């Protein structure tokens, strides 16, 4: 592995849930306290291995963001979180300005817990609300209702001055008016950040089986587009900046961790099924808890596969990930990175996409048009080698 002097983002996967949501395809197992404790000891082992591996000449690796994702990281007690964070601050260099996010579900939040989280060093919450409509929540298999969601968001606001809520749209049988009500309630609560995800039916999930069994129909892409445009209009009118295809933020509250992904910058993922990117290499861990622990027991990293990106692949990824940001990709940054002009290298693709009205170039940046935001995949695929 190459040494990396850049700052890193750190992702920690907490693969436990008290029940699986019907749409989710992230790796998780049923929550058991004993297993969680055992897992945390291995997670620390993995963290220690990387701290040794990555630090050079007595210099610790600097972390810019930390993100606890899952699974359900909210299942960790504040004490357990604090232990992990303590280890991280011993082994890595953690800037006092670092963003430290924790994914939580409304149903697991209490005032006490929130206070303790804040004290342990968490400074940003990402709350999995998904909807303010009870029918939709139960369709998705969430374990809270709209009332609880509202209460817990208000509660979170008392302890945190930075939090985000996730919402899902294009849910089967959801009408534009339903979506509008959910958006209105979200805006009333004035979160700092909102992520909007169009429901994707992933292979192997309970929803995929229901779909195959004909229990519902997928939302037509033209309604999906209406919902997206409605949300964009609502949120922008309420003072949110639309800064990434699926993300909106009040001034100064963009997700710094997620920006690392879009900006083609390095990050380390620990825990089963987590993904890392550094030195032009993408690698990921086994998405299997026992295999993960077994590898660490044998003194190995629990890495399942490594892919060294070719130069062409790196260029493609920088462009298609960067185009997800509304500000787009900086032509100068691209040139600095690859020593070739983006507009010359992709001249043919750019010409085609411009003529289709999907992208625009200006102010040293290439970015998506509004039409391009809706049809991003048609743009992204053009840059693939």
């Amino acid at each position, binding site marked *: 592995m190459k040494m990396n002097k850049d700052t890193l983002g750190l*992702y920690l*996967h907490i693969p436990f849930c008290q029940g699986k949501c019907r749409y989710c395809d*992230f790796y998780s197992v049923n929550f058991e306290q004993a297993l969680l404790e055992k897992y945390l000891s291995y997670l620390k082992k993995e963290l220690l291995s990387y701290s040794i591996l990555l630090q050079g000449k007595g210099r610790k690796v600097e972390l810019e963001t930390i993100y606890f*994702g899952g699974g359900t990281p909210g299942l960790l007690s504040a004490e357990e979180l604090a232990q992990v964070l303590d280890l991280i601050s011993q082994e890595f260099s953690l800037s006092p300005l670092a963003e430290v996010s924790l994914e939580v579900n409304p149903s697991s939040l209490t005032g006490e817990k929130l206070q303790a989280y804040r004290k342990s060093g968490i400074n940003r919450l990402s709350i999995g609300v998904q909807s303010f409509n009870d029918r939709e929540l139960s369709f998705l298999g969430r374990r809270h209702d709209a009332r609880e969601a509202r209460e817990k968001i208000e509660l979170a606001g008392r302890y945190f001055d930075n939090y985000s809520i996730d919402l899902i749209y294009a849910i089967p049988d959801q009408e534009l008016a339903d979506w509008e009500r959910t958006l209105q309630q979200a805006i009333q609560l004035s979160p700092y950040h909102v992520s*909007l*995800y*169009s429901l*994707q039916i992933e292979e192997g999930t309970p929803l995929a089986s229901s779909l195959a069994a004909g229990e519902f129909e997928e939302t037509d*892409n*033209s309604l*999906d*587009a209406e919902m*997206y445009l409605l949300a964009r209009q609502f949120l922008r009118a309420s003072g949110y900046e639309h800064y990434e*295809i*699926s993300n909106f933020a009040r001034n100064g509250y963009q997700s710094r961790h*997620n920006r690392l*992904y879009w900006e083609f910058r390095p*990050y380390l*993922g620990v825990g089963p099924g*987590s*993904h*890392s*990117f550094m030195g032009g290499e*993408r690698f*990921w861990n086994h998405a299997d808890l026992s295999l993960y622990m077994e590898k660490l027991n044998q003194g190995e990293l629990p890495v399942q596969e490594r*892919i060294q990106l070719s130069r062409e*692949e790196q260029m*493609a*990824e920088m462009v*298609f*990930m960067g185009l997800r940001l509304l500000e787009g990709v900086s032509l100068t940054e691209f040139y600095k990175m690859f020593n070739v002009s983006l507009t010359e290298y992709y001249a043919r693709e750019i010409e085609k996409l411009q003529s*289709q009205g999907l992208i625009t170039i200006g102010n040293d940046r290439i970015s998506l048009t509004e039409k391009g*935001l*809706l*049809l*991003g*995949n*048609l743009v*992204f*695929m053009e840059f*693939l080698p």
Partner: protein
Amino acid sequence: MMSRGYFPCLLIKKRGSVIIFYELVEEGGTCLKGKTDHIRNFCIIAHIDHGKSTLADRLLEYTGVLSEREMKDQVLDKMDLERERGITIKAQAVRLEYKGYELNLIDTPGHVDFAYEVSRSLAACEGALLVIDASQGVEAQTLANIYLALEHDLEIIPVINKIDLPSANPDWVKEQLMDIGIDVEGAILASAKDGTGIEDILDAIIKYIPAPENTIDSPLRALVFDSIYDAYQGVIAYVRIVDGQVKPGEEIKLMSNNKVYEVDEVGVFKPDMVKTGILSSGEVGYIIAGIKDVKNCRVGDTITSAQNPASEPLPGYKKIKPMVYSGLYPTDNADYGLLNDALEKLQLNDASLTYEPETSEALGFGFRVGFLGLLHMEIIQERLEREYGLDLVVTAPSVEYLISLKDGEILEIENPADFPDVNNIEKIEEPYVKAEIFLPDEFVGQAMELCQQNRGEFKDMQYIDENRVRLVYDIPLSELITDFFDHLKSRTRGYATLDYEFIGFKESKLVKLDILISGEPVDALSIIVHADTAEAKGRSLVSRLKKLIPQQMFEVPVQAAIGNKIIARVNIKALRKNVLAKCYGGDVTRKRKLLERQKEGKKRMKMVGKVEIPQEAFMAVLQRDEDE
């Protein structure tokens, strides 16, 4: 029992080279060459799935041609495709040695598309094993082949297979066989799966099938029952020596084209090729003679001696013509050369495959390819895609039409795009087939309805046993090459079987149906249909295209037209949204793979004007809706 075996012999060729070959010699050293009483030539007649290949394997195994360990499943079907689909495409031959006898098994293709090849294989034998599934009974195709076998005066040994199955009913099968005039006295009950009856079968072959006639002193006549192309040795002709003998160094002549070649090698199949130095009357084996092209050594031709030629060829040779045509186009125009090479290579092994270059406004450069039938077409298409890695657009299959123009000229049209101006047409004739359908009588109504819907003319109906019926219809071939058979199957819960043969051309009221996409006619989607059903076909075709053509960035109208008259129209709504929403926790690789898959899907589409059309759309005319 006599003891016989193969012993090495030497042959010195004219040019001075020495060949070592193996000769069958009786104990005491008498060479058996030229004798025929120890030879039996036989084939196996069976319906698909009745266990022909498994039985052949068992016979090979029992006679020690191959050990169990060496046996891949079903050795005789050499192509992956044959193994996968459980069908035989090319004839194969193998020599079995059993109790001092030489038993030549010729495995024949089992599909109506290859009826001519089957007839030539049967002509190479004196007897046939008739394999019937003990629970399925006699099927149409089996019956057709039984008649063919009887025409060739073959001794038939009925083998009632799969008696290990709980549903087996051998007595019922025997009754069926008696009904069609087969002697069931010597019928053998067998299970190729567990080996029951294999020894009985081998003994019966020796006992009942006559030895070939010994005519070693007559001029050479060898029947070509198949030929394959080998990159190193050229054409390998699979032959039955009917009269005389042939050795390396001799000159031979193909009687259909009078081409002369010098024999390099002769031998037998065990099942790999083994040189023998001579083949003589009654034997089955191969001849290699520096023939460069299977077209010069077609199935059914007679090989004779150039020096001492026979006066008459063996009966039955005909050059077979394709029945079904379709356009094959590379999805990527740059692959045209590859497609050309691939067709050339396939034709080396398949003289019945014809092709010529063709240009489509919509699809660019491609080929109009002629096939023996739909299965043949599917096989060729699959081999091109699998063995040569080509991505193809295949247009709907078409037949050959005879169009008489008002000025007296007669056109042979295989491509709907070449259809002349309606005003110049005097009459149009299309090929008809005689279709024989065998089915339980409870489904007769549904089957007759289907035939009528497809312009079938009722010819005959008879009971072949208590509850099984044979229906005969004359039907336009163009109706059969859509999914007629699938519908027949579904309407008869899979019980019906279908067999057909070409009977000639008949005049029909036909029109050309055009499809317009975004206002532009797409030549590759044009079809020829009967005037009475044109409107309904047009409506169902545009609605099917609507399902098959993905949404584009703009609205796409799809229309069906006859001449200038639009008869149906649908609109494909514009694609409004297509973008990955989720972050996948930094899993960029997954995102990239999703995009790659989408891009791959796009690549497989054909750009027609500004519209991307998937390959399946060009075959859309093949399917029909049940509710039509």
